[in-house]
């Protein structure tokens, strides 16, 4: 191995888990074969508020194969202990839904019973025979902004303030020579990952094993430990693969408790798989949000006033709030900024983060308003954004740890051919279709959390890295493998990364685009510790090749060590065998330092979209999208590109297709299936491209990365909407932009 190894980081390495996925060998939570496993089917409330008056389960119990029917009348009482500190993935106020602990109904679709049977078919049939009667109460099912209330202190502390103010935005807006003001609506949207949520629960005495679809095994364990009042050590959560989640698997939903509870009562392992329709009420969703944006500017485009107000939907039992107004506060430089945030309680299941939570929603309104301002000013939309470029995070009053957004605008516009845009709406046509060019800014804050990892080097020269992280699709398996390969000086093929098990070192939530900055740095640290230990051992071995050298004399590379300034490379195999070690292990931790107090970190992008609109039929098709991104160091350009174009596909849905069709009479999403809730199909996706500008953020973390996933969906929907305006001259502020809005 004397040919120097190229660095793996920065290379477009194909997914290391790809072959397992495409050959069906990757085992997802629902695919674990647990001996003796029974199947569960839920009975869900069909009213939005009230109480269960009676449950008749006699017919269900008679169905062959049925083991148990669990309702609030016979379910064991669960302690539902409160956590000392709420995990950031949970609602920050209110109480989580307690399953089968009482007759109260908070929303249509709430579990009121579960049937456990030998087969899924038996369980489903039996569940359909359970008759539930309700004492109905008047429910809050309308999204009525007059009922908006400020977020509670828990959400204030979590960065979702009711009001913020800088300067005097109202006075500045009143005095502004050029202004725009409008209301923007984004409907309730659902994650709709391909893999449904599944939990298999198995009790061995007091020890519980959960095979669960989750983006955070460690918190899953902690939540269930609190629900059941048992020690965390007696729970193991296993979740090696996640078939898409987009945030729906961040927190531990009631069905996980149902699985564990049903398994306890049945005395056998139990599998709960949510149906597609059940996913609309059993996990969260992106909340329906209405926003008012008012922008004031000088005639040269300099922003003088930003006012943005948002009303978000939450449930009647929990208060879920988002950072919807962050973009208003820090995307552009402006001396006068005021925001106001209100929540509307409704009888619905609780919302939860969905890709780019809050920020994508806030940018949708903010970046559409910026386009409207550009029109009012008669100014190029890119020029307007450059005019108001934020040289610092003005809300936090901190410098950016890195920001290459100017470069994003420049190379994005160039690649897209923005200069070919004729500013006048309806001025570009081809084949009878109106052509529109639109753009928007993308931004998503970069965060990191404490993480741990373990690196093991074996005497055959391969390494195993472990951390209780998750990979819901971004390519974490691959990028972490690359980081570890470079840290150990091994080829990617010699490194294996395992994740998704509470038996592994702690990892933070796989959400908010923090995984690489958090787990990646921990893995680097673990590898460093390992090599330091190995260095100490080999230098202390009087018979070894590096006896009595100092640590600085050794260089670790190309699958072994070499004495600085010359000498033969001694491979890991040789070193470990010489030491009669079959392995050596390193543990590493990483945590954010004080940099978050002295810097603001954020990933940025500039998104350009071209649409084709039928002038008579109102149909909009996205012809192409180009995004130029500053994501810090790009560990894997291939998976990062996939992340970004995947975000664009999601945003095509956000702009043009996705909406939950809510019926206020039933308090129910009526289009709860993939035939009626439309997401983009392949034919809706034409040319998508993502470029990465030169960037590296070593202030934010030692790896220099900033995170990609959330950013990919941010700014795309407004770019599409702005392109629709340019094509048609029609400003649609009520998303999605359906054909009827353009007729």
């Amino acid at each position, binding site marked *: 191995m004397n040919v120097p190894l190229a660095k793996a980081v920065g290379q477009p390495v194909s997914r290391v888990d790809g072959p397992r996925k495409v050959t069906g060998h990757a085992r997802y939570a629902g695919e674990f074969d647990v001996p003796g496993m029974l199947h569960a089917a839920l009975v869900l409330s069909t009213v939005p508020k009230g109480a269960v008056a009676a449950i008749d389960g006699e017919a269900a119990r008679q169905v062959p194969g049925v083991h148990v029917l669990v309702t609030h009348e016979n379910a064991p009482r669960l302690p539902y202990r409160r956590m000392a500190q709420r995990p950031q993935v949970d609602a920050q106020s209110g109480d989580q839904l307690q399953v089968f602990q009482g007759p109260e109904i908070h929303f249509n679709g709430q579990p009121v019973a579960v049937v456990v049977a030998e087969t899924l078919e038996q369980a489903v049939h039996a569940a359909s025979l359970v008759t539930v009667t309700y004492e109905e109460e008047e429910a809050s099912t309308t999204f009525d902004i007059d009922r908006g209330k400020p977020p509670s202190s828990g959400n204030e502390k979590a960065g979702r303030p009711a009001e913020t103010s800088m300067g005097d935005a109202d006075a500045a807006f009143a005095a502004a020579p050029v202004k725009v003001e409008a209301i923007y609506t984004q409907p309730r949207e659902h994650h709709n990952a391909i893999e449904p949520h599944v939990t298999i629960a198995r009790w061995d005495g007091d020890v519980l094993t959960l095979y669960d679809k989750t983006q955070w095994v460690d918190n899953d364990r902690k939540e269930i430990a609190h629900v059941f009042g048992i020690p965390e050590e007696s729970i193991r959560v296993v979740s090696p693969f996640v078939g898409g989640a987009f945030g729906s698997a961040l927190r531990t939903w009631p069905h996980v408790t149902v699985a564990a509870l049903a398994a306890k009562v049945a005395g056998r392992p139990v599998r709960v798989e949510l149906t597609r329709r059940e996913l609309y009420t059993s996990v969260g969703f992106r909340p329906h949000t209405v926003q008012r944006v008012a922008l004031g500017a000088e005639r040269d485009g300099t922003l003088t006033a930003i006012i943005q107000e948002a009303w978000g939907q939450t449930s009647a039992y929990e208060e879920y709030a988002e950072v919807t107004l962050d973009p208003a506060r820090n995307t552009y430089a402006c001396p006068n900024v005021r925001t106001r945030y209100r929540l509307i309680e409704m009888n619905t299941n609780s919302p939860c983060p969905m890709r780019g939570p809050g920020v994508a929603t806030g940018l949708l309104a903010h970046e559409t308003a910026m386009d409207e301002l550009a029109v009012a000013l008669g100014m190029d939309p890119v020029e307007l954004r450059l005019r108001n470029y934020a040289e610092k995070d003005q809300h936090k009053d901190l410098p950016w740890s890195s920001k290459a957004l100017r470069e994003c605008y420049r190379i994005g516009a160039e690649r897209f051919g923005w200069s070919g845009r004729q500013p006048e709406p309806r001025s570009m046509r081809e084949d009878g279709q109106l052509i529109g060019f639109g753009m928007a800014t993308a931004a998503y804050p970069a965060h990191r959390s404490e993480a741990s990892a373990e690196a093991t080097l074996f005497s055959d020269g391969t390494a195993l890295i472990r951390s209780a992280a998750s990979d819901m699709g971004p390519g974490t398996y691959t990028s972490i493998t690359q980081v570890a390969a470079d840290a150990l000086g091994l080829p990617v093929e010699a490194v294996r990364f395992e994740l998704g098990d509470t038996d592994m070192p702690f990892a933070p939530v796989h959400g908010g685009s923090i995984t690489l900055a958090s787990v990646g740095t921990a893995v680097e640290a673990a590898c460093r510790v390992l090599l330091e230990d190995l260095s100490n051992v080999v230098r202390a071995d009087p018979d070894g090749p590096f006896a009595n050298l100092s640590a600085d004399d050794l260089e670790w590379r190309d699958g072994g060590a070499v004495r600085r300034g010359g000498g033969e490379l001694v491979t890991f195999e040789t070193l470990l065998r010489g030491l009669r070690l079959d392995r050596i292990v390193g543990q590493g931790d990483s945590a954010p330092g004080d940099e978050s107090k002295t810097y603001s970190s954020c990933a940025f992008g500039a998104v350009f979209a071209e649409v084709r609109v039928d002038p*008579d039929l109102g*149909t909009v098709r996205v012809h192409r999208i180009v995004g130029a991104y500053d994501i810090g160091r790009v560990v894997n350009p291939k998976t990062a590109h996939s992340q970004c174009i995947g975000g664009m596909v999601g945003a095509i849905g956000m702009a043009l297709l996705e909406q939950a069709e809510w*019926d206020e009479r*039933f308090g129910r999403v009526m289009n709860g299936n993939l*035939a009626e809730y439309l997401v983009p199909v392949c*034919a*809706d996706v034409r040319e998508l491209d993502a470029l990465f500008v030169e960037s590296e953020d070593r202030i934010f973390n030692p790896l220099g990365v900033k995170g990609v996933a959330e950013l990919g969906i941010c700014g795309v929907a407004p770019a599409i909407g702005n392109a629709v305006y340019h094509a048609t001259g029609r400003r649609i502020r009520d998303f999605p932009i*359906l*054909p009827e809005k353009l*007729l």
Partner: protein
Amino acid sequence: MVPFAYIAVATPEAAIRRTAEGRGAEYVAGGTDMVQLLQEGVRAPLELVDINGIAFDDVSIAIDGIRIGAMARLADVADDPAIRERVPVVSSALQESASPQVRNMATVGGNLLQRTRCLYFRDATTPCNRRVPGSGCPALEGQNRINAILGGSPRCIAAYPGDLAVALVAVDAEVLVAGPTGERTITVENLHRLPGDAPHLETVLEPGDLITAIWIPLAAAGRRSHYLKVRDRTTFEWALASAAVSLGMNGDTILEARVAVGGVATKPWRLRHVEEMLVDRRLDHALARAAGERAADGAEPRGRNAFKVTLLRRTVERALLQIGGLA
């Protein structure tokens, strides 16, 4: 899902015998619609009679028409050279139906009988007169964006969702039906019922009836034809509005016209008054516009589906322009 018996049959006679007995037996062929409805508890037959073993799946040309076996898969019919050449309206209606996977499974006979996509019909927790007679129709005042503006009743405004039947109406097609008392033919136009007071009765088929073939008369096959489908997303989606047009022409003069529309009506909907406007006229922009203007006559929009009035007019206009090479 309610437990049901399953039986596979190899002959039409055996199939008809099972369902004619009135004991809750239903046919299943491609299963692309039936299986979803079983899973959601929308349908609960006591017995499923699998007719995939019946080999009526060929497309054949006779001296006076084209015969499509009812068991032919959508994909095969869409790709059939005779269908593509002689009745392009049928081929393109099929090409634009569902997804490739569904088209590979679904049969043309089953497709004609596809149930509605009304949100309330498909969600078994809500009332629906079509699913549970007499339970009510929440779509009238509810989420009815996809529902019908034509042919509705105070009991039901569910739109007929398919494409094929609309195209077949435009080419004067008939279905050949075998039943307990023998064989008969029904025009596709008359196959479906209006919802009226009994929306749960969707077609004129009786228990035991089995569609064995579709017949397209050659006279119609000689006309110029075209299908235009307007929808939210590019593929794998039902029509918000569609128009099937078939015109017998001499130069640019229309001698004979059929205009059928989909996605807007409770059954495949023929616009006879529009057809009459077209006959003996020169096909030009003005005629297409005038015909389109009348396409939604008699429409009864209800809230969220009101846009379909305008969309239907423009869809018919565009379809006429396209068939005339004017768009």
